[in-house]
């Protein structure tokens, strides 16, 4: 199971990539593998302000539906609308082309409170 070293992680299996004041967010390799083939995705509009832990979308596989939670607080700066017509990308490249939203952070230090790769590996026991 791939857990890149330069990312931070949540208990609800999102990953966060910090670029200055922008946080890029997606779901982990573990999450896509557990869900299986993704068949539905609902993401917020750009401009929406997300509170910490707020549900910002829904992802569904053939087997299950799951909420997406904001791991950080801030405004949605960009949404990966290309995913909507190519949901298999989330299964194939969860940490790259499978990114979902970019959030302009209220407080960039918030990212440091999330799990490190090692903590996430221990948490999921993978």
């Amino acid at each position, binding site marked *: 199971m791939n857990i890149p070293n330069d990312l931070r992680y949540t208990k609800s299996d999102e990953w966060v990539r910090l670029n200055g004041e922008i946080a890029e967010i997606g779901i982990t390799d573990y999450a896509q593998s557990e869900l*299986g*083939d993704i*068949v*539905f995705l609902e993401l917020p509009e750009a401009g929406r302000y997300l509170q910490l832990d707020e549900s910002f979308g*829904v992802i*569904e596989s*053939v*087997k299950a*539906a799951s909420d997406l939670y904001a791991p950080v607080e801030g405004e949605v700066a960009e949404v990966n609308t290309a995913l909507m017509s190519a949901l298999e990308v989330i*299964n194939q490249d969860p940490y790259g082309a499978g990114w979902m939203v970019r959030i302009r952070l209220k407080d960039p230090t918030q990212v440091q409170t999330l799990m490190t790769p090692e903590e996430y590996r221990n948490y999921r026991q993978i």
Partner: protein
Amino acid sequence: MKRTALYDAHRRHGGRMVEFAGWEMPVQYAGIIEETRAVRQRWGIFDVSHMARAYFQGAHTSEYLSKLVPSDLTKVADGIGQYTVLTNEQGGVVDDIILYRLEPQRWLVVFNAANREKDLAWFHRWRPEFGTDVTIDDQTEQTVMVAVQGPEAVARLSTLMGANLSAVPRFGIAQVDFQGTALWAGRTGYTGEDGFELIAPAELGEILWEALVEAGATPCGLGARDVLRVEAGLHLYGHELTDETNPIEAGLNWLVSERTDYIGAEIIQQVKQSGPQRKLMGVVLQERGVPREGYPVMIEGDAVGMLTSGVYSPTLEKGIGMAYIPASSAKAGMPCAVEIRGRAVPATLSTRRFLKQA
């Protein structure tokens, strides 16, 4: 948890194991969508060894079985199977089953894994009244059952077995030789595709499975099996059929004969004559979304039913499901909506023949 004789083979081929009806079964291998496509376009194989199989034998077996089902078994010849239901005194469905007549008084009965104990108890309960000379031999755990399904299934299997299996009629059953052992091959399935269900001694299971994989069949799990059966509009016990569901409202009129001497016949004939109050319909989403079991179905804002099954159909690239709808509204083409997370997603009622609408 019970394991089928193919458990090791599943692990070897990367099957992801889950619990189903007390059995540890593969839910998927490469992925549910890929497996679904393989069966619609080429051929795939499923371990369905968890399903119950029993031989019924004795001088009055046909008469005994006739008392338990609404179908006319006098029309079933040797080597032919009949899909039917066990009915209860209230006209409800105890289980849906396949009865294969192997000989005039010897039948092979295939029934649902989740209902194995319940059905066996039911069969034994009616023996004193209708079949004291009938013996019931449950061979589930001594055998494996492998479903071979898809447009290429019959030709590929014929090559592998060195037999012309296309000569076996739909729902027919024949013995075929595989490496010196006789297998049962029933031309049925649960996918809406052509194919066979093979029954073999448990010790031959892995060899059979590996030979099929070697011949190019895609191993498929229960996930794809469920998607395929919903796409084909087929019932699953506990969902579309229950002890409280009668076969007429379930759209199984075709298997209900005019007979009046089986359990629950009076009520079922009554419903057949007056028409059911509700009917099992297909539901097709008109927007993106995944309909799932339990989601409310609405017509003009009123909840009129609930999805008994729902899936994303990779074949139609739409969300589809089934629901019992009041007879007055149960018309193909009727606009409706499925409530998904509080939102009414536009949908249309349809027949259960989803694939015919594609």
